[in-house]
């Protein structure tokens, strides 16, 4: 039997029905019902799709508005560029992906099914050229023999160098998804924490029932719903609960939930991942439903929800059946057809056929009939179609076939006919513009499987249900394979009570609402053999024959199948396709579905924008910053700042007319060496080491002794890691018998504090020592240069003796400053000059900088930055970060003699290892180019003269360089093999990175004032 089936009597009856679609005048909504649905007809909205103006209503999604406008073709597929229509009504949508918005807000791959309609919405179809209807790349279909499973691996194997230059760009152009804007995202995102006793994921009948029960029991509840509206399938499936319509029950339940102060309902919030310790990731789409977020509001917010218990009531996803042409526009999930009709009052078509292997699909027929839509036929593949369904068909005047759909005809604008192979052997052609399909339901097992619990197979529902759940989680309702409304309400209620009780909340929770217990009747049908392409994964164009091919080629494991065919790797993450794909694999490999197994489920369950993960941490807020006490003053003087870890430090202070940084830095160095200057060194780590055993403690962490240090004295100290490598250095002063003031390098302030706490708490709990960071308490400045004392005499009370006798090198004490402030004065020098460090409580740091300028005015004082500081330490051969680089020993740094032989200290034993005392080790030396005009560069390697540069002849490298205004040339420090024995030797500085090669002389690292007279004078 061929030809269209005439159902004129039914047509006539429904044509007379009051609910037939009516396009309001001026409206483009040809497929909109004039009553019903959860839309606001009083709030019409204008939008465009591919530039065409259309209207919809508040409450619509973009997809439902397109359905109401009679749009069937919405996109082109990824590989074959096949025309595609809307398949689903939820976040699993594989086809209806659009570019939303324009300009910097352009957002590719947005699901039309979850994008809420707003006034002025602009959407473009993607992956087509020049237009959606006439897409040049659809010729790919003709080449389909080469676009089979493993296509990338087979086609682009050789030559390898072609991949980056030719293959990948070509593939991306032809097969790309949407285009990103390429501009900075103008919107803001943030992150927040939430805490509750019970997190309920999903607000369908199960979730609402669970939230009600837990909320009544007194638990702090968060009910998270990814949709803009709570209710889940209750919004689409009708039915009765507790003697009222399910919608009425839902409204009452939501009203009760909002009356409970301990319950928080979060709509537009998708829980996407399950992490350790009961932490859940969720994405709230705060302002995706408007054109632009209101000022000061964020676009999206990432939630970290900490829950004692979690009830997953995430429902189930209806799965397609694989048959020829199952991807044509007009073929839609049966549940989606229901949703468009019931929730959105939008008709996906006017002549609807149903292809189902289960009882649930028939509910679409009921919904369509209620809406006055013609049912052209129902094709039910189950061997025994229940009598009551046949009776309904009889009454309603449509035909029922026991068989399968084996082909679909139609073009880009949608299907026109379907071919049915009846179980009895004959074929029927049926005219239909819409084919609703239902292959059964897959419980949403993703969240339950995020801790590697494997889903388990249930034959009775032909689906996987969650296996072992993460700690604290239970799954209830459809997500657990309970598909009847009554069972969902009971399961949710029980789970809610149990979760509340486990959180210690046990008030009365009432009893669950009652509803019907109609069980799902299903006879599995995965794949109908046919002549044409039958799609398993719509978004990645994976067909049934691709899976068979993968099996033949040995890619039988589901993980191999996934990677070889790209099944389940699209943005829908296989939610429409995975189970069907592995069922087909089971079929062709002769195994059962549970034997075939599932791939691993990983977060995120739904796509999460990188912007949301970054939250506030972008641009100037990328990380927090630390400012020194003199920051504002330095900024006023026009200082250039450099990021040093989190700190902003003044790098140099340019004066008007100075042409470059080198001019400024040279001037700063010369001014200090000839007069006086000061530098904010507050960033150095400062630690109060206190208690009766403080000295003994420091003896163990430093290689040199500190218990013998007199009160009022400072000493340079070096500490090693346990492996004998240098960890950090700094000056430590003894302020009282039981109080040392320890300093670290800026970079290691945090790690050293952490390490000392570890030593105190874990290594030597017997020592009575207390530690705390006081880095931020003190504003500390280094004052250096021959006129330092002159400057200090201006600002320090005249009674204080600053003479060499009264305040010798390495002395420390409190002094009174003029005006009443008490300061600590340390006679230490990093620059090699006569120098003091002065510190005052941080609130006086700004005033101290200003007052030092006043006190030093007559001596020509200047502030200097970290560059000049660096120049002066290199001129003096003082090691710093580039030399304390995690590979050097005390001996390498020339500080081996500091190590005490009278005591034990961390790192002592391992520092004596053969390799660490090898005389051939690279040690710190000075380096200067033979050609004095030559610039020395860090990172250049030292190679013996005459040797060919190679790893074998490499003898070291340049670690620190500067232009020395004192020597009038570039100088540096380096690590060179046996360097201290080679002063005067000329070697090559080989710098392949910069293409340079020049001669340098190895020399004593102390370039300036090697006797040290200046700092002691």
């Amino acid at each position, binding site marked *: 039997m061929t030809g269209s089936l005439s159902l004129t009597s039914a047509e006539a009856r429904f044509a007379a029905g009051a609910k037939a679609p009516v396009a309001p005048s001026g409206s483009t909504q040809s497929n909109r019902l004039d009553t019903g649905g959860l839309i606001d007809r009083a709030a019409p909205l204008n939008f465009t799709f591919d530039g065409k103006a259309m209207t919809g209503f508040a409450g619509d999604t973009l997809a439902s508005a397109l359905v109401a406008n009679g749009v069937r073709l919405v996109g082109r597929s990824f590989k074959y560029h096949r025309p595609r229509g809307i398949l689903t009504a939820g976040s699993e949508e594989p086809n209806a992906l659009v570019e939303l918005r324009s300009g910097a807000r352009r957002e590719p791959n947005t699901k039309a099914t979850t994008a809420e309609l707003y006034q002025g919405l602009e959407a473009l179809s993607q992956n087509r050229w020049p237009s959606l209807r006439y897409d040049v790349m659809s010729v790919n279909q003709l080449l389909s023999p080469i676009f089979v499973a493993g296509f990338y691996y087979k086609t682009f194997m050789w030559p390898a160098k072609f991949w980056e230059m030719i293959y990948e760009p070509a593939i991306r152009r032809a097969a790309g998804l949407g285009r990103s804007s390429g501009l900075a995202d103008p919107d803001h995102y943030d992150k927040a*924490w939430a805490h509750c006793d019970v997190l309920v994921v999903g607000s369908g009948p199960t979730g609402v029932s669970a939230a009600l029960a837990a909320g009544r029991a007194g638990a*702090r509840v968060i009910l998270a719903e990814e949709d803009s509206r709570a209710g889940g399938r209750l919004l689409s499936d009708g039915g009765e609960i507790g003697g009222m319509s399910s919608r009425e029950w839902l409204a009452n339940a939501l009203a009760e939930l909002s009356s409970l102060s301990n319950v928080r309902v979060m709509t537009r919030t998708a829980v996407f991942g399950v992490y350790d310790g009961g932490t859940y990731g969720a994405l709230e789409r705060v302002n995706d439903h408007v054109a632009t977020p209101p000022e000061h509001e964020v676009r999206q917010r990432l939630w970290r929800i*900490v829950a004692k218990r979690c009830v997953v009531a995430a429902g189930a996803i209806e799965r397609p059946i694989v048959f020829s042409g199952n991807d044509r526009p007009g073929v839609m999930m049966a549940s989606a057809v229901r949703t468009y009709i019931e929730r959105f009052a939008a008709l996906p078509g006017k002549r609807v056929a149903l292809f189902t292997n289960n009882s649930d699909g028939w509910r679409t027929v009921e919904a369509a009939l209620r809406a006055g839509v013609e049912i052209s036929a129902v094709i039910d593949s189950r061997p025994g179609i229940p009598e009551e369904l046949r009776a309904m068909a009889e009454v309603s005047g449509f035909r029922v076939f026991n068989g399968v759909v084996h082909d679909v005809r139609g073009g880009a604008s949608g299907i026109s006919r379907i071919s049915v192979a009846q179980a009895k052997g004959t074929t029927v052609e049926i005219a239909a513009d819409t084919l609703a399909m239902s292959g059964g339901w897959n419980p949403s097992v993703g969240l339950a499987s995020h801790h590697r619990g494997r889903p388990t197979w249930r034959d009775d529902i032909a689906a996987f249900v969650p296996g072992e759940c993460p700690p604290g989680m239970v799954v209830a309702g459809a997500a657990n394979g309970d598909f009847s409304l009554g069972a969902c309400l009971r399961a949710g209620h029980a789970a809610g009570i149990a979760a509340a009780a486990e959180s210690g909340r046990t008030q009365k929770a009432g009893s669950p609402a009652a509803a019907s217990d109609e069980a799902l009747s299903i006879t599995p049908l995965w794949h109908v053999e046919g002549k044409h392409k039958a799609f398993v994964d719509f978004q990645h164009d994976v067909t049934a024959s691709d899976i068979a091919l993968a099996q033949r080629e040995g890619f039988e494991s589901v993980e191999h199948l996934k990677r070889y065919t790209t099944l389940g790797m699209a943005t829908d993450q296989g939610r429409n396709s995975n189970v069907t794909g592995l069922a087909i694999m089971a079929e062709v490999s002769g195994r059962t579905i549970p034997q075939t197994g599932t791939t691993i489920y990983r977060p995120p369950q739904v796509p999460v924008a990188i912007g949301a993960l970054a939250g506030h941490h972008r641009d100037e807020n990328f990380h927090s*910053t630390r400012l020194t006490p003199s920051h504002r003053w330095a900024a006023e003087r026009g200082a250039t700042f450099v990021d040093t870890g989190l700190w902003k430090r003044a790098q140099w202070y340019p004066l008007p007319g100075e042409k470059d940084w080198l001019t400024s830095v040279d001037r700063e160095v010369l001014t200090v060496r000839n007069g006086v200057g000061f530098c904010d060194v507050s960033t150095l780590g400062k630690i109060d080491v*206190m208690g009766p055993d403080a000295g003994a403690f420091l003896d163990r962490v430093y290689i040199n002794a500190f218990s013998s240090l007199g009160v009022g004295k400072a000493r340079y100290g070096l500490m090693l890691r346990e492996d004998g490598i240098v960890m950090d250095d700094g000056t430590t002063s003894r302020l009282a018998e039981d109080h040392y003031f320890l300093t670290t390098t800026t970079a290691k302030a945090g790690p050293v504090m952490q390490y000392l706490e570890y030593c105190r708490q874990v290594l030597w709990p017997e020592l009575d020592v207390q530690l705390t960071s006081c880095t*931020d308490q003190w504003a500390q400045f280094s004052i250096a240069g021959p006129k330092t004392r002159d400057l200090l005499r201006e600002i320090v009370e005249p009674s204080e003796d600053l003479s060499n006798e009264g305040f010798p090198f390495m002395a420390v004490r409190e002094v009174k400053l003029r005006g009443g402030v008490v300061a600590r004065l340390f006679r230490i020098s990093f620059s090699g000059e006569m120098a003091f460090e002065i510190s005052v409580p941080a*609130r006086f740091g700004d*005033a101290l900088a200003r007052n030092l300028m006043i006190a030093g*005015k007559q001596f020509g004082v200047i502030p200097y930055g970290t560059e000049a500081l660096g120049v002066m330490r290199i001129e003096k051969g003082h090691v710093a970060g580039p030399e304390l680089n995690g590979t050097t020993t005390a001996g390498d740094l020339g500080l081996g003699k500091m190590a005490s032989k009278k005591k034990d200290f961390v790192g002592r034993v391992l520092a004596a290892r053969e390799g660490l005392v090898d005389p051939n080790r690279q040690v710190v030396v000075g380096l200067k180019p033979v050609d004095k005009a030559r610039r020395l560069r860090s990172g250049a390697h030292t190679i013996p003269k005459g040797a060919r540069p190679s790893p074998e002849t490499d003898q070291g490298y340049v670690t620190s360089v500067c232009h020395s205004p004192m020597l009038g040339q570039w100088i540096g420090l380096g690590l060179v093999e046996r360097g201290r024995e080679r002063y005067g030797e000329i070697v090559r500085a080989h710098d392949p990175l910069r293409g340079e090669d020049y001669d340098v002389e190895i020399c004593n690292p102390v370039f300036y004032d090697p006797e040290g007279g200046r700092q002691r004078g």
Partner: protein
Amino acid sequence: MADFTWTATSPLQHATRPRRHGAAVQQSGIVLSEVLDFSLVLILARRGQWSATAKAAKEFFGAEAPAKPLAVRGKTTTLFWSGADQFYALFPRVPAAQPLDGMREPFAAKASLSDQSDGRCLIQISGPKVRAMLAKLSSLDLDGSVFPVGAAAATSIDHSGVNLWRDTDAADGSPVYNVLVFTSFADSIWHTILDSSAEYGVEVVRPHALDEKPSS
């Protein structure tokens, strides 16, 4: 000889001038202020000296030394927990006196003392939306049932360590939280708080002393 004036400055000095910021709303969701002129001393009990330290604290400050995450108010001093065997004493600054003056003697051989008066800035946050805002900055559960008045925590904001404790509620019934931050981070954290508060509308009120209520 030149004259020297020693003006104390806070790193928040330029950020805390009174103003409204963010969403234009009838009632600001967030009320933000800096607390000035306090002394802050970290008291670390020496080995085996916790009881003696607590006793000394009780005598000196008239408040119970907190052995767990609490903030305890004495007449002028708040003692708040900051870790095992250690707590802070926060009290109004006495001009021209060193905070440790007078403390050394009663705590001698019992506890080590570290003056942190300049090492921290104190930010006070209140307003009807304060919990929603702090949920962006802190991983703590600040619900009233979990974090009542007097609860304290040593925690972090924006990866920087802070001490946070809940003060008595504001006149409008909003909870009041004290956030003690490292001085060098204060400017950065203040701006993060301001950004996080913008959607609720912020009222920055003038800096005030410890024993003063914030007012605009």
